[in-house]
């Protein structure tokens, strides 16, 4: 129990509750269920992407191409829709595309041995460039999308839109996947101690590549949801969103050095940013504050992580041992 209270997730949940409490004291409307559901729905893309990013970070890598993958997959979804392809087929194609884009990153990291930051820095510009090549910079607007395509994420079931339900399903799957399956645990092992992972029969590079594929699939899923929800697709959608995703992970306590982090942490990290983003206009602070606030949150979070993770010096003295 005490270990749970001391845990990062509990602290973050507390921070979010305090934040909500402070806002509620002046603007009670913000904490009404419908409003909170809206915040959750609005944060769904960030939560989904943060889970993909988390898997990559667990394996000691980073995926800066998620937002570009999102934009490219979203655009392909919109274009396929324009050609009259049925929605299920669109979804399948786009998820396969996302997996393929993730595999490109993964193979470059695994087979060629290029550091992931360099690979994804390169692919993020390439993916966006490809959108431009496909469209010549043209937008796909709401009137060019079918109603079925646009309405799916907004369709409300049991009080929550489908987009929010997708996030719930992804969170559930990831909780089980990361705690209860051998593959899920192997991400922790590979990032926590790559050397030992080899002795356990794990292929470090292959596991990293799988992480990139997972991140790619989730980026593509979010790509469709994003394009359909905002009913527009163009080269620059979700520009810079990869940093929000990394920020959500860092705030959620996912160790950038790999091997440590939980689904709950990543989700709460995303929700923290989501609450701030949605609360700013309500409390009358200019949305231009958002960037600086999330930047500060990242720095505070990483400073906090480091304090927790710092190993105490060696304890040799008997007297010190008793006190420790």
């Amino acid at each position, binding site marked *: 129990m005490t270990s749970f209270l001391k845990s990062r997730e509990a602290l973050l949940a507390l921070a979010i509750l305090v934040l909500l409490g402070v806002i509620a004291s002046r603007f009670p409307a913000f904490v009404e269920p419908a409003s909170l559901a809206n915040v959750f729905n609005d944060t769904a893309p960030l939560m989904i992407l943060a889970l993909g990013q988390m898997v990559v970070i667990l394996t000691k890598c980073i995926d800066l191409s998620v937002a570009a993958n999102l934009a490219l997959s979203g655009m392909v979804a919109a274009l396929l829709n324009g050609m009259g392809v049925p929605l299920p087929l669109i979804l399948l194609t786009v998820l396969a595309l996302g997996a393929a884009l993730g595999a490109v990153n993964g193979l470059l990291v695994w087979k060629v041995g290029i550091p992931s930051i360099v690979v994804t820095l390169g692919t993020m510009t390439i993916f966006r460039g490809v959108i431009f090549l496909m469209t010549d910079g043209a937008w796909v607007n709401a009137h060019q999308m079918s109603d079925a395509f646009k309405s799916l994420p907004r369709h409300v079931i049991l009080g929550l839109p489908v987009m929010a339900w997708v996030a719930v399903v992804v969170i559930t799957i990831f909780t089980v996947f990361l705690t209860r399956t051998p593959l899920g645990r192997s991400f922790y092992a590979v990032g926590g101690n790559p050397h030992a992972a080899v002795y356990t029969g794990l292929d470090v590079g292959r596991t990293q590549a799988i992480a990139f594929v997972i991140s790619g699939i989730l980026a593509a899923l979010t790509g469709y949801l994003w394009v359909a929800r905002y009913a527009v697709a163009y*080269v620059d959608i979700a520009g810079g969103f990869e940093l929000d995703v990394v920020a959500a992970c860092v705030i959620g306590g996912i160790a*950038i050095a790999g091997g440590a982090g939980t689904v709950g942490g990543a989700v709460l990290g995303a929700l923290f940013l989501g609450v701030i983003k949605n609360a700013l206009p309500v409390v009358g602070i200019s949305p231009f504050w958002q960037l*600086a606030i999330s930047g500060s949150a*990242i720095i505070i979070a*990483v400073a906090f992580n480091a304090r927790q993770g710092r190993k105490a010096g060696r304890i040799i003295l008997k007297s010190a041992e008793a006190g420790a």
Partner: protein
Amino acid sequence: MTMTEPKSIGRVIPDRLTSPLSRALRSWEALLFAVAVAVFIANSFASPYFLNAWNLSDATFNFTEKAMIAFAMAMLIIAGEIDLSVASIIALASTVMGLVMTAGYGTPEIVLAGLATGLACGALNGFFVARLGLPSIVVTIGTMSLFRGVSYIVLGDQAFTGYPKDFAYFGQGYVWWVFSFELVLFAVLALVFYILLHRTNFGRAVYAIGNNPTAALFSGIRVDRVRFILFLLTGLMSGIAAVCLTSRLGSTRPSIATGMELEAVTMVVLGGVNILGGSGRILGVVLAAIIMGLVTFGFGLLNVPGIVMSIFLGLLLIGTIALPRLAKGLRRG
């Protein structure tokens, strides 16, 4: 391991086995130089407007500001760190310059404000990384949002315009004939950084830290101080770039220089600096800057859109690192 020792060699060990010249010819820089020449020739065939002194001079604006940052970034990356906040430092420095200008001060104060902001931002990054021991990639992703976020808070969707006439010199002025102030500054800074990295004790400390920070500390190097100075230096160079860019554009928007950090990192990596630290040379970064500038300019002359250019750079970045590794893999069978 005793069998790996070259037993035949006596007590006098030669200084070097390969001459500096043969080494230079087989270096990454030699390859970059060949690429630069090839791009130059290709451009001159592709467009009749290319081989014109004034057009070429214009082309240099494509890389001078980024290269200034890349020099400092190169040292930082060699030392095993990274600063992703450089473009945001430019935004903040430019914003502060705008505020100083609006307050009625003249060009000297504006420039000083820009440089001081750069230094202050660098000091903040350095404090978090060198003093508190936080990982630089996360810290600077944070300050990247923070610095630009402050610019957004100050400016929102507004812009500062109306900089003094003489302020325009830094980004638009010419020292002599076709040689712009920025180009001359680029050349001078290239020389300064060359000397700093390759000809001073400080530069050697940077390499030692990049290869093995613990052993560097155990060799009496003040590792944290060197790291702090490198962040300070990167901040200062971002401040200088902010002065040039603001002067060239004549205005400040909070979105100024967006994405420039990635271009600077690309330039550094293309220049042959190991992203994991420990090796790399300033000459490579200079050549990479020129190549990137020439390619951008050539594509511009051919009316190829900027985003296609960025695909090319992305491929170049991955390709330049992948090809030598793949070739090595093939040779090993």
